[in-house]
């Protein structure tokens, strides 16, 4: 055991969820018709960009040992505000106001949790209902349509350098997220606060400010996700994407983030989102009823999380060690 080759040590650093993703990719490529095609991959990435950006936001909050249930309502209100603005003012103002409204919701969440000391679960659940109520009242319960506008559609449907804009934005989001979490002082503080709030406080970290800013930063990612979706559907709806909180939390869990906080990486979010996106895509390709989607998603979450949280049971290294132990001659027995 003492002289394991170096590369095995490195392999241990790779998130386990990546193996799930690789296996899933191989199986789907073989079994699902039309899965293995460049156009399908582009499709998967484009569709998953919304979940990707929202999950990146969710991940920040989860690493802070919190949870964010109001992302779905925030995106819905974002769509309504943006469509109002594009109807009455201009496209840039639409994007700006949609972005700002999500940041405001993030700031309210942050204030409730960091300063008013509400548990994140309660605070964001209350905000889910409150924001949804506001969104419904604003449009009287019915969707509102955006006027036909190429520039408004650009974010959700356009292409730049031959690549769909949502994919570019998601890629950009991943890079920013990675730098934020693993290169900046703020990122380190997020991890420390999420890992042990008391210890962080006693080390002189401004715990409340980090939490507040964490929720605002998370809202930044959610806002971009909301704008892409608004631009794609070109309408403002109070019930735009009610499952978003659950899908983002699932993506984080499947990717391997600890819901207890303090741990998780951008790569894990990426893997978690891709696992869920490939799954949804295959269900569509196989012409299975969409009701299938939720059931399968539930199953995959359980399977992926069990696989990742039973560290030694499946690992080839420990199997070898156990084998060596069993076959070793036993002293004076």
């Amino acid at each position, binding site marked *: 055991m003492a002289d*394991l080759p170096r590369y095995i040590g490195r392999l241990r650093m790779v998130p386990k969820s990546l193996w799930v993703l690789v296996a899933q990719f191989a199986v789907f490529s073989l079994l699902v018709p039309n899965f293995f095609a460049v156009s399908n991959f582009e499709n998967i990435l484009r569709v998953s960009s919304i979940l990707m950006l929202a999950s990146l936001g969710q991940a920040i909050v989860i690493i802070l040992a919190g949870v964010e249930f109001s992302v779905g309502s925030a995106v819905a209100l974002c769509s309504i505000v943006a469509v109002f603005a594009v109807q009455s003012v201009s496209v840039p103002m639409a994007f700006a106001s949609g972005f700002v409204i999500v940041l405001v919701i993030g700031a309210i969440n942050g204030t409730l949790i960091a300063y008013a000391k509400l548990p994140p679960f309660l605070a964001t659940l209350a905000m889910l209902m409150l924001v949804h109520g506001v969104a419904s009242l604003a449009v009287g319960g019915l969707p509102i349509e955006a006027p036909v506008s190429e520039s408004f559609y650009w974010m959700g449907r356009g292409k730049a350098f031959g690549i769909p804009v949502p994919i570019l934005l998601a890629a950009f989001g991943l890079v920013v997220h990675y730098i934020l979490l693993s290169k900046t002082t703020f990122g380190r503080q997020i991890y420390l606060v999420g890992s042990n709030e008391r210890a962080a406080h006693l080390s002189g970290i401004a715990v409340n400010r980090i939490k507040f800013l964490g929720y605002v930063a998370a809202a930044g990612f959610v806002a971009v996700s909301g704008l892409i979706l608004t631009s794609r559907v070109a309408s403002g709806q109070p019930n735009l994407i009610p499952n978003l909180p659950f899908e983002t939390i699932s993506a984080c869990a499947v990717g391997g983030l600890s819901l207890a906080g303090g741990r998780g990486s951008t790569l894990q979010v990426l893997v978690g989102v891709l696992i869920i996106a490939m799954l949804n895509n295959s269900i569509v390709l196989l012409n299975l009823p969409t009701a299938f989607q939720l059931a399968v998603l539930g199953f995959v979450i359980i399977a992926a999380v069990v696989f990742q949280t039973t560290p030694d049971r499946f690992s080839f290294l420990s199997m070898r060690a156990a084998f060596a132990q069993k076959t070793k001659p036993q002293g004076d027995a």
Partner: protein
Amino acid sequence: MLLSRHLCAARQGSRDGRCLWKMAVMSEQSSPVEKAVLEVTEVKKAYGPTLALSGVDMNLYPGQVHALMGENGAGKSTLVRILVGATQPSGGAFRLNGERVNFHSVSDAIKAGIVPIYQHLTLFNELSVLENLYSFDTATAGLLPPYLGSAAAETAKASLARVGLSVSLEQKVSTLKLGERQLLEIARGLQRNCAVLLLDEPTAALNAHEADRLLEVIRGLAAEGVAILYISHKSDEIRKVADVVTVLRDGRSVICGAPLKDTSVDELVNAMLGHAFAVVDKQMPVPGEIVLEAKQMVLVPGGAPVSFAVAAGEVLGVIGLVGSGAEEIGQALAGARDILSGSIAIDGQLAHPYSRRDAVRRGVGYVPPDRHEDGLFELHSALSNASASILKTVSKFFFLQRKKEKASFSSRFQALALNPNEPDREIQHFSGGNQQKVLVARNLVITGLRILVLTEPTRGVDVGARDKIHDAIVEATHAGQAVVLITTDLEELTSLAHRTLIVRNGQIVRELPQFSSPDDVALAMLEQE
């Protein structure tokens, strides 16, 4: 059986020299005639590529207190975890009453009569004292919880009395002091019918008086026929309580069950460290100007105000029994606790507002008493744990500079003998004493350090590393820093402190001068006002 023990001795002898061979043979002669309850042979444990245990032999006999010693990271806690099935060994075997056993869970071990008391407390903070006392039973109970009824309460009271703990059964554990929790943890273990009691540094959180009481309890249990494994870094305690000793070095038993009366302190230290070691008397500087001043500070409603000052280069000792308020004074000085009235001044300037964050900005380091709850970021590396208070200094604009971060600690970790010296390893995979070293290092590097408030800075640390931490404190005083040392380790206190404040009921009842003897301090603590 006898043959295998000789083999153990011979193996040791050939590897580590004559002296150990002799000792192992001696242990053979003086071992009790009774059969061992627990026999450990060649137990190994690998964590990935690192070997935490590379071959441990040890026999526990009924009625015998067996001391287990070794440097930080030698593998003592790992051995305890293996014996109770909390982790699985990678090799070797152990036998309970002659039968080979291998526990797959701690509850199996407890059922078989092996009760562990870990280095790290495992109480349920949100439950009552009573519920905690019965938590082992609750795990295996039927429909009704086992702590209902007056008989259960009587048993619980008796267990508390056995360790001399006077708290009410209804009290929540979260309201207890660390020392009280330690006693409760032991009381919980005692309440079970146990054949083997494994104690991993049980006195680390206790003061000398409470520790003595616990040692008496342990002797009493041994007299009742319990086999006891006693892990500690304090050799005077071990001499008081233990019959035989096993020493681990680098995961291997280099002394197996030698009788303590035939083993000198030097021999033990030599076996633990692999070389001779002696503590050199510390040269303390002459205190300079006043740095920190507490004026009429009141900490609890209705409490008496306390006033004192600490000068540059001075070590102010603070000591009191558990619950005396000594720890709270430390918290207040470090900005970790609001004061109700009065004030704190640093360099003559009023420190207000004074949160922990303000204190760090003013150069006040603080080592808290409970390293797990208040100190460590379990999921993170030793390096990120150490740098938590200097993130700004190791950053440029908004970005962390990893090289600078690493460089800030390479000499510190070396000086404190971090073992293994792998700054990127997660802190939870370090031994208890090494976690403590990281926590101390965090506070020694604070930018613009002026004041160090240290609560039990050498808790759970081995003799060598203890001396190294003391060296670091002395070095800080020579650099003009003021040190407040809150400790229950009388040796540590009297060798470092310029003055010592005795605290009782939140009040300073006496002040002792430099070079007071440990006995003076112990007496002063117990004195009636």
